[in-house]
């Protein structure tokens, strides 16, 4: 399997390599630099390494703290999806304390998280990724594509109001573009909706183990619903507009499907609990995991390997190899069996001990603060470098294949697609969108899935707001259940952060945190070569990305590489460095012969 072995360097004719580096990468959250050596003759990236720039030490300073502080602390891991961490930590604590929140508390968290997806995917897609596809950028990187865009009618012009693809690109120009500014505005009212449920964005104030502190009134849900319906109307413009833009890219640049392409190795840990099923008990986790409104799953080469959260949990392995840490083989084992009696591996997060060892960066040895999370596929004995497809691609893929989700027709998983139905809004009629499993796991499809998942989130929110209002109308306004913290306990939580899989693992001893390890999506996506030499997903997806940019080496911007990496929605503090290993003669040639016509 290609992801299992260190890539062999191409033995054939010496490629003409040009060193290209970009540090930092921008329009992402986190520290990310890019080092490449590019074969301009073959027009490909030859090799890539990924490296993280930052270490803070959460798992160290959380030791010995009160377990009830965990969600307040872990929210601060991430400045754009902190609430995903807070939610996942609350799930973890609920399991450890054996507490089930009132249904209304769960609906409120579901609505908050839906608002987070609606906000975050919107601002990332339009104000960060969108700039890579805007007129100003395309003019600088691919003038011929812009010319073509200006002469290409947008197939869905009637739905979104932009006559040509060039008009769409102009609307995405930073600050001056009309759609860019509209998206900023949308990012604000969706965050207001979020604050109605979880108090503050990005670190919520009203989440607790056992439920929420939000005062559940008719007013709070009405205020949410009004904002949600504005977003539903907005989606009816956004989905067709992005389909037009992304379809144009394949058409204008044949072969673009190879940009950011990698084998389909997707992980999704599920999102939105169904309070009728979920009791946060580990022993029933398979059942309530499968009731989630996004189905957890591992997808390998188009096959759904499992939908069991227990399988997912037990398969997680944290490997070292290229990271600035000491191994924990000789440290203590905290959890040797899960509550079902299954053995728990020494390299599982429950048993991880973090031992930092700051040192010089060396791409032939240790080059990152990121570890290498992998998923052990017991069918094959392989440690899979799963990615999240930026979040939405894995969520839609897993949900589609599983065919389990059906929210009163608002969202329906068919086994090969996901159907999203949005009701009539102020000026637009009801619509039905179908996301179909794409041919590739690549940059464009990660981006397209993001747009569809925005619509999906709106549909889920419509379902949850109705459920919540029904509770309030029935007089069930309790949002929180009391609990006591046991002296000894373990817990785990599974959720989808905006950009993909999120797990938290906690061990409580003597009423204090003895071990706590969060695994957000970017350690998976931005992971580094592990002890088996398997590269992380960014490294894998960027290596062999073809170059379509029209600039030669002297004015090269690296836009195709940027699009490949940004499609994963990097939300670090951790990073990517792409670098060619030693032993290859580097020619620093700034010659026009390496340009588009070479």
């Amino acid at each position, binding site marked *: 399997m290609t992801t299992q072995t260190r890539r062999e360097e191409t033995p054939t004719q010496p490629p003409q390599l040009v060193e290209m580096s970009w540090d*930092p990468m921008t329009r992402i959250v986190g520290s990310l*630099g890019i080092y490449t050596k590019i074969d301009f003759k073959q027009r490909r990236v030859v090799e890539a390494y990924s490296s993280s720039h930052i270490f803070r030490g959460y798992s160290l*300073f959380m030791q010995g703290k*009160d377990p009830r502080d965990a969600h307040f602390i872990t929210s*601060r891991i991430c400045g754009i999806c902190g609430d995903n961490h807070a939610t996942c930590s609350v799930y973890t604590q609920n399991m450890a304390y054996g507490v089930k929140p009132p249904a209304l508390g769960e609906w409120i968290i579901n609505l908050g998280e839906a608002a987070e997806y609606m906000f975050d995917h919107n601002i990332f897609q339009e104000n960060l990724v969108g700039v890579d596809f805007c007129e100003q950028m395309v003019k600088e990187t691919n003038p011929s594509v812009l010319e073509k865009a200006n002469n290409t009618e947008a197939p869905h012009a009637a739905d979104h109001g932009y006559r040509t693809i060039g008009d769409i690109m102009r609307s995405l120009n930073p600050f001056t573009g009309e759609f860019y500014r509209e998206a900023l505005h949308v990012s604000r009212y969706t965050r207001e909706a979020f604050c109605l449920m979880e108090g*503050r964005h990005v670190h919520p*104030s009203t989440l607790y183990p056992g439920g929420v502190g939000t005062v559940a009134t008719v007013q709070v849900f009405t205020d949410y619903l009004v904002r949600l319906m504005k977003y539903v109307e907005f989606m009816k413009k956004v989905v067709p507009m992005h389909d037009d833009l992304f379809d144009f890219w394949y058409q204008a640049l044949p072969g673009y499907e190879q940009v950011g392409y990698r084998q389909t190795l997707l992980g999704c840990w599920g999102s939105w609990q169904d309070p009728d099923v979920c009791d946060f008990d580990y022993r029933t986790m398979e059942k309530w995991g499968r009731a989630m409104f996004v189905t957890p799953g591992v997808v390998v080469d188009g096959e759904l390997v499992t939908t069991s959260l227990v399988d997912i949990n037990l398969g997680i392995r944290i490997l070292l190899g290229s990271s600035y840490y000491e191994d924990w083989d000789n440290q203590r084992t905290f959890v040797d069996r899960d509550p079902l009696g299954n053995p728990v591996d020494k390299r599982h997060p429950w048993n991880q001990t973090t031992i930092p060892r700051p040192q010089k960066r060396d791409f032939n040895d240790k080059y990152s603060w990121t570890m290498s999370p992998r998923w052990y596929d017991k069918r094959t004995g392989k440690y899979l470098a799963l990615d999240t497809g930026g979040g939405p691609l894995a969520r839609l893929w897993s949900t589609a294949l599983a065919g389990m989700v059906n929210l009163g027709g608002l969202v329906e998983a068919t086994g090969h697609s996901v159907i999203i139905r949005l009701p009539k809004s102020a000026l637009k009629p009801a619509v039905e969108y179908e996301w179909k499993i794409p041919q590739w796991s690549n940059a464009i499809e990660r981006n397209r899935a993001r747009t569809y998942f925005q619509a999906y989130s709106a549909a889920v929110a419509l379902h949850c707001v109705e459920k919540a209002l029904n509770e309030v109308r029935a007089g069930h306004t309790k949002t929180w259940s009391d609990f006591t913290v046991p002296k000894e306990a373990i817990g785990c939580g599974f959720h989808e952060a905006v950009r993909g899989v999120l797990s938290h693992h906690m061990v409580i001893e003597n009423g204090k945190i003895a071990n706590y390890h969060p695994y957000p999506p970017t350690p998976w996506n931005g992971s580094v070569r592990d002890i088996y030499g398997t590269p992380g997903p960014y490294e894998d997806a960027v290596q062999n990305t073809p170059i379509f940019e029209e600039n030669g080496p002297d004015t090269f911007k690296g836009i195709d590489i940027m699009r490949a990496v940004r499609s994963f929605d990097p939300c670090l503090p951790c990073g990517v460095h792409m670098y060619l290993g030693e032993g290859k003669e580097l020619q620093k040639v700034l010659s026009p012969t390496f340009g588009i016509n070479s």
Partner: protein
Amino acid sequence: MATTVEDVHVIWIVEGLGCEGDTISVTAATQPSIEDIVLGAIPGLPRVHIHNKCIAFEWGKDFMEWWYKAERGELDPFVLVFEGSVPNEKIKSEGYWTGLGVDPATNQPIPVSDWLDRLAPKALAVVAVGTCATYGGIHAMQGNPTGAMGVADYLGWNWRSAAGIPIINVPGCPVQPDNFMETILYLLYQAAGMAPMIPLDDEGRPTWLFGSTVHEGCDRGSYYEQGEFATEYGSPKCLVKLGCWGPVVNCNVPKRGWMNGIGGCPNVGGICIGCTMPGFPDKFMPFMDEPPGAKLSTNVVQLWGGPLRRLRKITNETVNKEPSWRHKGRELTTGYRPTWRR
């Protein structure tokens, strides 16, 4: 309204030990919004060029060029905004806790604290955004391995810019969006010669934003007055007995809301955990327990006036001080025992 400078650059370092939540928070601001400033929608202001990684058009060398220009004195004036806490890079023999850009000579990441050393002397003003940058915050918690501290702990509490401006601290975890934009707007007016020196308190906070306590602006205050305290989360009553520190925390969020008047903390059912304070988080943990001072004060709630205010003042002074371990030097005193060569 004539301005004395035509262009002001904002060099915004987001690579301290943080989460970049302050930058994201600021994109939610509307009073003014980031596009109001960038597009020149406010009268009298110079042209403003914001250089922040999360929204920049360019990347890599093109992006870093602004940092080098600022270092060479070619951007005059510029405001240096720092986000995240400053790790102590001196407690180990090699490696880095956080880096920005790469040293062309060594190909190693440049520690972010080096950028602070390089740029602070050239800046018109240094603004610390968020509680990590102002006082250390979450990443400077007891037991932390990096020796993290606030910008003023690093540069010195008496530090002044060449223009004589002290470090401006806008705390909050994250910062309340409009609190930050309003502070920047004030500084831009000051740079344009239209406003006097920005008024700051002893902790470096703009006085008009942090002069009152959470409790003084909380719409649940009358429940306190009536001696009605919530015993479970989700109740509309006063949250003091469930862990709210509002009476001794300097912050305007309950009054202002989180954004556009919506959301907040105790006003919408979230206990105040003191996230704007120098003593955050250690002096407020465990967050969900009743603050030690609250037991007494909620019992004497009928004996109004002076005594209660004096009691609160003592606690307010305590939580307005950082813990002792946030400092420079070669020693790590957070309680974490280093595993690396020193």
